[in-house]
């Protein structure tokens, strides 16, 4: 069996790259500007940032453009770029309470302290394709902006933020529905999976970090499997908020907290119906799951919070016990990184001539063996039949 290895591919590789460029531009349409991508494809940009694990909206816009909209490819580009940056210092711990919210909702109580704020959301939009968007013009854009301008004049915030709100989780802690925060906040530096490879069992900070840069589709699938049937999650959304979160670092000399900017982020907390009975004497409580993403990524934040809660529950060997693939921490964390998963899956495109050749040899031997065996069995039976009849 002859297989000829393809070699000398340098020219081919260069030509292939050029062809990709050509396919992107062949229609002759106006090139996309990064600012357009950042503003008008905000979910694509947000997804690239949170899966690429780098908060950089303009670079993310570039990645989306270069990847021609492929979300894993875009986050891959961004994550690769991240390796060129040095880590200066960790930021100070921030609480979601510091968020200037554009939106915050709770599904556990009808009215919550501060009130439900729907904010920017497509949840209740009837999903009919909107022709008007197809025929948008500079004039129609100006009209929309002018209308909002009027609202701002009437007192609405220019960046959509409504204000600061207390956390529903804090209320639940007061009511002892969920475990209290530790008396002494943990001030040790969190596990950094970009510096230390994740090993198991892993601390919760490693789990959360790993989940927050996981592939949205993957987290969604695991979380969904757990709530649909292959698991025992019974989540209720305590709170989901989206808005601007200030980032602070400690001054290297004075140690004083300094705000260095704001990021847009989504934060989610879910409580789970299953009571924890890790310690049999302790009071039954809801279990809390936490989700966080850069940008506006609600489905991912909810999925992450569900998985966090399921994994905590599985570790504590809760009432219902661990069950389903989503309760297996190693399984979830080691397969949810979209960049790793797509890289490895795509690597099957690389030449495997050597390994396949070895597989072929094994297959040949197995075939030979089966043929010989079946022949000798027939032979044996035939001989014995002859003997018996003789």
């Amino acid at each position, binding site marked *: 069996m002859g297989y000829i290895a393809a070699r000398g591919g340098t020219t081919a590789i260069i030509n292939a790259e050029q062809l990709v460029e050509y396919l992107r531009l062949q229609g002759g349409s106006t090139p996309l500007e990064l600012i357009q991508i950042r503003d008008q494809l905000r979910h694509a940009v947000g997804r690239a940032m949170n899966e690429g694990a780098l908060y950089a909206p303009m670079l993310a816009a570039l990645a989306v453009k270069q990847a021609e909209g492929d979300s894993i490819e875009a986050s891959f580009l961004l994550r690769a770029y991240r390796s060129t940056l040095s880590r200066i210092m960790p930021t100070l711990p921030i609480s979601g309470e510091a968020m200037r919210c554009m939106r915050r909702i709770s599904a556990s*109580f*009808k*009215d*919550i*302290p501060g*009130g439900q704020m*729907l904010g920017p959301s497509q*949840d*209740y939009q*009837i*999903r*009919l394709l909107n022709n008007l968007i197809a025929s948008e013009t500079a004039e129609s854009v100006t009209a929309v902006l002018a209308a909002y301008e009027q609202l701002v004049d009437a007192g609405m915030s220019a960046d959509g933020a409504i204000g600061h709100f207390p956390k529903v989780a804090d209320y639940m802690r007061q009511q002892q529905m969920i475990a209290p925060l530790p008396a002494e906040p943990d001030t040790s530096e969190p596990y950094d999976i970009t510096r230390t490879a994740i090993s198991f069992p892993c601390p919760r900070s490693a789990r959360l970090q790993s989940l927050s840069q996981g592939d949205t589709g993957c987290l969604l699938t695991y979380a969904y499997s757990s709530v*649909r*049937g*292959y698991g*025992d999650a019974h989540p209720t959304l305590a709170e989901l908020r989206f808005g601007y979160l200030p980032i602070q670092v400690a001054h290297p000399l004075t140690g004083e907290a300094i705000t260095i900017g704001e990021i847009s982020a989504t934060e989610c907390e879910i409580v789970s*119906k299953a*009571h924890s*009975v890790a310690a049999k004497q302790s009071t*039954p409580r809801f279990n809390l799951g936490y989700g966080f993403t850069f940008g506006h990524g609600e489905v991912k934040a909810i999925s992450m919070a569900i998985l966090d809660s399921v994994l905590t529950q599985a570790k504590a060997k809760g*009432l219902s016990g661990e069950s*389903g693939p989503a309760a297996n921490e190693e399984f979830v964390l080691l397969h949810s990184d979209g960049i790793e998963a797509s890289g490895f899956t795509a690597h099957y495109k690389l030449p495997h001539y050597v390994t396949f050749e070895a597989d072929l040899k094994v297959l040949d031997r197995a075939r030979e063996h089966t043929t010989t065996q079946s022949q000798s069995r027939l032979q044996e039976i035939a001989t014995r039949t002859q003997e018996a009849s003789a």
Partner: protein
Amino acid sequence: MSTTPEQLYNFGFIDEDSKREVRRQILKAIALPGHQVPFASRDLPIARGWGTGGLQITMAIIDADDTLKVIDQGDDESVNAVNLRRLLQRTTGVTTTVDTTAASIIQTRHRIPEEPMRRDQILVLQVPMVDPLRWVEPNLERATIMHGESDYGRMWVYMYESVVKAGDLRIATQYPVIVAGRYMMDTTPIPRWDVMRLHNAEALFLFGAGREKRIYAVPPYTTIEPLQFEDFRFKTEFVAGQICARCGAQDTFLTSHFVVDSDHADGGHWRSSCSDTSFCDKRVLVNATTQEAPQ
């Protein structure tokens, strides 16, 4: 065919053939109370899991003469209820109401209205999880065989374990029941308060799960038995002495609200009132007109 406000769409959004298919499965579901009947769930302009099963049932059975009420958590003004009502109204042009007694079709999520429903009314429930056996057998093929053979032993062990481990039947909503002595059925996330209100009721209850693609039904005057033990009875959420802070009702399902109150330390306080808002409003109105103070 009736004219629709938006001519682009058929009356009730989905096409007539699909509606007929849904109606056929509804008839089958009524003939086999509590049995989950698969149906070809269509894609709607509403996300899966947001009531698409209930919507398809309503769209398939609604007529131009119907009067529609849509509630979510008992509340007519809840965002999702508003939204679904808006879609149904836009695509059918039917009259809508908040008054339970005036409606011919009520689509609901998580509640059965407090006012008893009549034989000329249909309650359409939106169902997220269809199969009570899912907790003990997630594989659909095996669960189907278990239903077929009424092999409910494992589910009963689940109930037994819940008593042994938590000291009580620890199922808050989606309480499993046996319908007409045969099929085990998920009551969808209605609270336990509402479970027995399905029992031998006058109205027809239709359950639709769009994502899971199943329809099931509890026809009028059908028995409903919650899974329970002689020494651990099924209990509703009722607490002795409970009272609605708005209308004073003492025998309704209550939910908690945060009331802003600047005098209060936390900037407000919590209070309980009827989850069925239209029922509560009616009583408030009656109380006001008869000048009777709530008890």
